[in-house]
């Protein structure tokens, strides 16, 4: 299964049989006061800095989240998108809980974006699927619904199936549905990562879709976070994760290593290139 995203001209192919695609998570105001203050001034220099450093570090797609208290995201999200695509030819992942902001951004973005995110709640499906269809965007489907979050991988799979079914019914192509199995902190629940890994395996096996996840928070509340994140990343990739949302500066090495180990990097070209360029 191939999901094709596009910047201005640059296609990025997320392939269930191909190497892992990294969606850079750093354009996000949580714990980045500077991002909030610069955006409030209408200054996009720091956004572009974050874009550039992530691309250099290995990001193939950029997540764009500009949510902070008091923000007019219907105005700011498209402005931020325009600033990024004015400087970089890279597909974007539009990250907002506000469908109006997503739609406003899709209007100006061009290319082919990813919407982050739809979930199994009726309200979410109703509004976002038609927007995705209209602008030919791909979607991330979060495996939670009106009943909240389940810790049963089979139930998460069922939510993924429901999202897929509803998306296809709305006229969205199957390959444009990417599933997020939900990754939760293992510090609070020692089985949290196993549940996610099993969900990934099931979705990969039964639906064959591309799979993403926000992969940096599983290590919340623990020491050795980078090591823990890297190990979880490798295991998730083995089970079928294809396009994690993460910090490329910290995760690209583990991703390239996983691809190589799993036979998705002939002659270790990408692996060697990454380490050569990092010097």
């Amino acid at each position: 299964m191939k999901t094709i995203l596009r910047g201005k001209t640059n296609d990025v192919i997320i392939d269930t049989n191909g190497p892992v695609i990294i969606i850079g998570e750093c354009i996000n105001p949580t714990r980045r006061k500077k991002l909030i203050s610069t955006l409030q001034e209408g200054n996009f220099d720091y956004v572009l800095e974050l874009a550039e450093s992530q691309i250099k570090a290995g990001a193939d797609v950029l997540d764009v989240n500009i949510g902070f208290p008091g923000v007019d995201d219907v105005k700011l999200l498209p402005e931020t998108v325009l600033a990024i695509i004015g400087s970089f030819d890279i597909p974007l992942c539009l990250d907002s809980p506000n469908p109006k902001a997503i739609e406003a951004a899709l209007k100006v973005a061009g290319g082919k974006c990813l919407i982050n995110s739809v979930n199994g709640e009726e309200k979410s499906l109703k509004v976002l699927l038609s927007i995705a269809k209209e602008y030919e965007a791909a979607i991330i489907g979060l495996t939670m619904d009106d009943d909240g979050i389940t810790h049963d991988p089979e139930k998460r799979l069922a939510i993924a199936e429901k999202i897929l079914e509803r998306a296809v019914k709305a006229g969205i192509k199957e390959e444009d549905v990417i599933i997020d199995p939900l990754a939760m902190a293992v510090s609070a629940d020692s089985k949290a990562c196993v549940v996610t890994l099993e969900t990934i395996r099931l979705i990969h096996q039964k639906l064959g879709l591309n799979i993403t996840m926000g992969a940096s928070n599983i290590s919340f509340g623990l020491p050795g976070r980078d090591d823990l994140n890297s190990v979880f990343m490798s295991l998730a990739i083995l089970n079928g994760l294809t396009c994690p949302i993460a910090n490329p500066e910290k995760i690209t090495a583990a991703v390239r290593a996983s691809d190589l180990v799993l036979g998705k990097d002939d002659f270790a070209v990408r692996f060697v290139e990454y380490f050569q360029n990092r010097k």
Partner: protein
Amino acid sequence: MNEILNRIAQCVEFGKINKTSPYPPNMKDQDGADELAKRALEEGVKPDEILENALIPAMANVGNKFSKKEIYVPQMLMSAKAMNSAMAHLKPFFQSGETKRKGKFIIGTVSGDLHDIGKNLVAMMIEGGGWEVIDLGVDVGAEKFLKALDEHPDAIVGLSALLTTTMENMKKIVMAVKEKFSASKILIGGAPVTREYCDKIGADFYSPDPQGAVNYLKQLAS
């Protein structure tokens, strides 16, 4: 008598829940907080003393070590479990009114937000500080907080939010609470929350960690 209180405190601080719990390894096969609290009561130790001289200081140590990153979330959860196993023996005395807690604390993660770890840690630490905690869960809107305050008008309120997009709902809840219960105190916390934001929305206190919240409550109660 002091010895058994010290032992309960040790069990809580290091997460020894009961005799069968395998952690920590150096306390294997020894009585845990559960058995020791029961025995202390049987030996005539007052429930107040167990709360004041064993559970509260032990949990304060846990909170301080967590603030200094000497321990992490799993250790804190183990301590909270050990505390709960001891606290269970005190519940009848709370209910009969023989043992009084320091006050009531209502906590919830705000509407639109399902993150519960931070909220749970704060709830545990505050319970371990000797307070009665009313945990409203996650995705809690202003109405639910107001309803809880109707039942417990003297309670202090805690709001948690983990997303930059949901922390805005803190503002709505603070406004609604302050309008109806102008004397109530509200403390807020969560990854994206800052002291400036706390001041801006008219909340009373911001803490970057659970122990800060416990200390604030302690100060209010004194």
